[in-house]
């Protein structure tokens, strides 16, 4: 083994132990994410890619994404990533405004964000995704439009966009509770989101899931897997895996994770999914996508006729222009997508 880092060592071991988890299926996507994988050195990334290829059959055309912070990227690093075979970059830009970045406690500056996208493009990356955050306090509608336009002007292929959330326990949550910060009103947040959808559409970047937008052919294979019930294996501390009827998640703590491997202990918790849970997950993730859910598949896999079991519900959604049908495919309109969670939960099966 070529590394001294106990976490990486453990990850290599995890690859070996889990080599049968995906039933020998061919790997179509690899994703380096969570935390700051771009801090890894070249040989460390190589080590993990080798471990993947030694234990799995990785498709030569696989999508290989690396999550990066703008401040970790420079021409040398980008060249290195290119050499390693990374063919997609996910850059955590979040905003092109310094005041937003400061508020969200980001390490980079707005000009670094623009710079690193340009450098990545010069280094030959032609599949770049960036993320943009909306509903930031003091982010006016005009400033938001400028942010979106800047992303379009940079010519990225893919955008993910998230609403700033104020969860209890986070610093934001505390400020909101203490009254020193105001959460952006629902109406304003929706307005920003709809503006985003519209402007990206005009630029040829289409929404294909609640928070994901791409030029044709650049939809993330990796993200899509989560919403299509595809199986996946996560390697490393706090990584999640899914094999069709169970989910498991690794211990989150680096030291406990590597210790588990060193001592031969169990490193994950597992949850078996009942048929109802599988159904609910399919509805929940499926309705988030523009493609929607396949009623034929629901009949085959779950023996449920969704439309006739929810006549009133669907009628109401229809009246509110939240749903469209195309054959067996049921999907949400732009308006419906704004309420995708609430709508999904209405279709849920609840076991007592």
């Amino acid at each position, binding site marked *: 083994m070529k590394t001294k880092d106990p976490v990486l060592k453990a990850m290599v071991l995890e690859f070996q132990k889990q080599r049968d988890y995906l039933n020998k299926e061919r790997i179509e996507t690899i994703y380096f994410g969570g935390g700051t994988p771009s801090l890894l050195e070249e040989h460390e990334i190589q080590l993990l890619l080798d471990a993947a290829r030694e234990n799995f059959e990785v498709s030569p055309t696989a999508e290989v994404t690396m999550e990066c912070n703008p401040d970790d990227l420079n021409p040398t690093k980008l060249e290195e990533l290119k050499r390693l075979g990374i063919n997609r970059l996910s850059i955590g830009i979040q905003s092109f405004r310094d005041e937003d970045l400061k508020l969200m406690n980001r390490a980079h500056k707005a000009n670094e964000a623009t710079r690193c996208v340009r450098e990545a493009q010069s280094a030959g990356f032609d599949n770049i995704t960036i993320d943009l955050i909306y509903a930031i306090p003091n982010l006016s509608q005009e400033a938001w439009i400028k942010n979106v336009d800047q992303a379009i002007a940079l010519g990225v292929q893919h955008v993910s*966009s*998230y*609403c700033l*959330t104020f969860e209890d326990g986070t610093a934001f949550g505390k400020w909101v509770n203490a009254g020193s910060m105001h959460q952006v009103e*629902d*109406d304003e*947040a*929706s307005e920003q*989101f709809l503006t985003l959808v519209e402007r990206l559409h005009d630029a040829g970047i289409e929404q294909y899931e*609640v*928070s994901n937008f791409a030029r044709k052919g650049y939809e993330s294979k990796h*993200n899509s897997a*989560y*919403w299509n019930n595809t199986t*996946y294996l*996560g390697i490393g501390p*706090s*990584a*999640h*895996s*899914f094999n069709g009827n169970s*989910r498991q*998640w690794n211990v989150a703590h680096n030291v406990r994770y590597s210790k588990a491997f060193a001592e031969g202990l169990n490193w994950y918790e597992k*949850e078996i999914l009942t048929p109802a*849970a599988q159904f*609910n*997950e399919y509805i*929940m*993730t499926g309705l*988030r996508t523009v493609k929607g859910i396949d009623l034929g598949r629901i009949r085959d896999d779950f023996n449920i006729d969704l439309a006739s079991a929810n006549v009133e519900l669907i009628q109401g959604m229809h009246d*509110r222009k939240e749903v469209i049908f195309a054959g067996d495919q049921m999907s949400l309109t732009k308006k419906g*997508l*704004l*309420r*995708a*969670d*609430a709508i*999904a*939960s*209405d279709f*849920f099966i*609840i076991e007592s």
Partner: protein
Amino acid sequence: MKNTRNFCIIAHIDHGKSTLADRLLHKTGTISDRDLQEQTLDDMDIERERGITIKSHAIQMKHSADGEEYILNLIDTPGHVDFSYEVSRSIAACEGALLIVDASQGIEAQTISNLYLAIEHDLEIIPILNKMDLDSANPEEVTDQIVDLIGCSPDDVIPASGKTGMGVDEILHAIIHRIKAPVGDPNGQLQAMVFDSVYNSFRGIIAYYRIMNGRLKKGDRIKFINTEREYYADEIGVLGMGLIPRTMLEAGNVGYIITGVKDAKEIKVGDTLTLSNDPCKTAIKGFEDVKPMVFAGIYPVDTEEYEELRSSMEKLQLNDASLVFEPESSAALGFGFRCGFLGMLHMEIIQERLEREFAMTVITTVPNVSYKAYVKNGTMIELHNPSDMPNPSSMDYIEEPYIVAQIISKSEYVGAVMTLCIEKRGELKNQVYLTSNRVELTFEMPLGEVVFDFYDKLKTVSRGYASFDYFTADYRKSDLVKLDIMLNGDPVDALSALIHKDHAFDLGKRICLKLKQLIPRQQFMIALQASIGAKIIARETITAVRKDVTAKCYGGDISRKRKLLEKQKKGKKRMRQVGRIEVPQEAFLAVLKLND
């Protein structure tokens, strides 16, 4: 029969009845070490969770003394005022009562009221000074209180502890020697009084009775005098830790009968059971009808479950003879039942039992007492529901029920107790020092002020050192107004309440605020208004949700999010559609939760 003793255990709440029952069950070997737990007789889940007795519980014990074997039928009773009907029915099946007094608390309000019930029925009273193991026990003073109250000799008071087992032998001795054997003629015509019953989904209705005269054999053709229905006694027996079948029971004993009847309406607590071919001439005097103190509507959340709710309530009524109900309908909620309860705890327990034992999901509406509305033409209308209030223009005046409240408190809390009572529109009638530091206060107060949160508040202001009992007095003219709540301009009858004029503004405002917290945001804006007649006195708005979707949903988020949405859906199943608005179950009781 001469070796049978029937007795109940009575006391103020929490003085240790059920714990002392454990000691008796253990001592007599009725229960094995393995089955013994704390308050074994509190076998309903709600009783165990809340740590209080709700139902009387009869159990038979065997005990040998002086070379003879005795049959002891014990009935443990609840102490909370709301369940005093359970106590009074138990008393009717007994010749003696163990009156338990907590040696650290002394005589409290229900000690007195339960004692009077027992004395009225000529029961032999065995006073017991319980919790003697506590450092705070005050045996001399409390013994004096007991002697004063029942006029016994200090030697008659048995010091005991349900914790250590102290005094248990003396108690058993007293039960055998001081309580009279039941009188009655085993050779006479069968006459048995039904004092309780329960619905069992496998076996049908099980009725509990005390035989006054005669014998009952398995297989007998029997008859209930009031309902005039006849059945075969498929199974009879006595109540041990469970049902113990017997082939014959005779006068003086307490037992059960199963006839296979499943329809709740066919059996009535208080009825007399006899033999078809040789019926007794007279029915035993049944129980007095209960007088409900509080009324509220109970509605199914799912309108299609109305009939199921009715049958569940009938079954529940078998086991809770103090529940009364009649059908009613509400513009907002459709068909349901107006129910009468003995108090707020009783109401809560009924709702909980309907949900647990019968899997019903129900809405309980704002409770109220009963009012008398006098119309200008001189007629009087008794109101059990604010929506039945006549048009104000045709009304002359309205009366509300008053009670006489007796509060016993440590003297240092008298000031706080008085302040509370006056806030609740009470009027002090009498103040007596029972001892140098115990005071009995007598107040006249509107029942409507007492049933809601008075009891809890009294406990708070007196740090648990005040107890309270009441009886209804009369109706008095009062300045009451009807407070209506409107959702998007439509009045919701189930949320209306009659309120004293002086409290109306404040309450209207607080109810609107509370509803704003309880009703989730929906796809449209909701206007909440409180009004008196045509006058709007408070308003709030719940803004519309436009967006209800979390941004991220990747690997690790999926199961967390699914669970969250599953929870949401479960919550929604407990909501009731009023017009277009989904109103959660608990919002209908918002008035009661203004202080939370």
